[in-house]
């Protein structure tokens, strides 16, 4: 259990997002085959980074 907490603090940053937007994400998760909100958001961020020419490997 403590290991999980330590991993979360070290590897994740907490960002404030409007609840209404996250509600829309929750609705889209099931429809588009994502397992979680985090997975959807990681994918969305990578896509936009790619659009701006920032290379991200698929292995992440």
């Amino acid at each position, binding site marked *: 259990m403590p290991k999980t907490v330590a991993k*979360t603090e*070290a*590897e*994740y*940053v*907490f*960002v*404030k*997002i*409007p*609840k*209404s*937007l*996250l509600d*829309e*994400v929750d609705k*889209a998760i099931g*429809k*588009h085959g994502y397992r979680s*909100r*985090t997975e*959807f*958001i*990681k*994918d*969305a*961020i*990578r*896509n*936009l*980074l790619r659009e*701006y020419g*920032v290379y*991200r490997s698929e292995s*992440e």
Partner: protein
Amino acid sequence: MRTSLLLEKHLKKQLLEFMEDREEPFSISLLVNCCLQPIPATMIRDMLCKLVDEGEVIRIDDERYMATRVLMKKWLRQKIKRNEEDVNFDELEVPRNLFKEISKLLRERPELGYIDESDFIRDAIRRSLYRR
């Protein structure tokens, strides 16, 4: 003539400074009473009319006035407070390495116009939602 213009300019400046310090509406009699030197009420009234014409002061009703700048500040403060209250936020976890990539991009390309990382993430989510 020149002295009169200088006096008028001085009075205008002093009145405006006094009015912009007041958060609440004021009347002409209050302005007259607050003047350190005796100034005729008609002179103050004329100056106030001039300031109303110039948009520096707003006439609220028959007796009360307020400086436009003070009114704008009050309105903006209330509006900003209302907007903050209207939006409910939720915390979202983002992998630190992705967050660092965003920070780097925002530093290198300020022309993209993002305010901060959270602004970028919100845009990424919206684009992803609308693309589908």
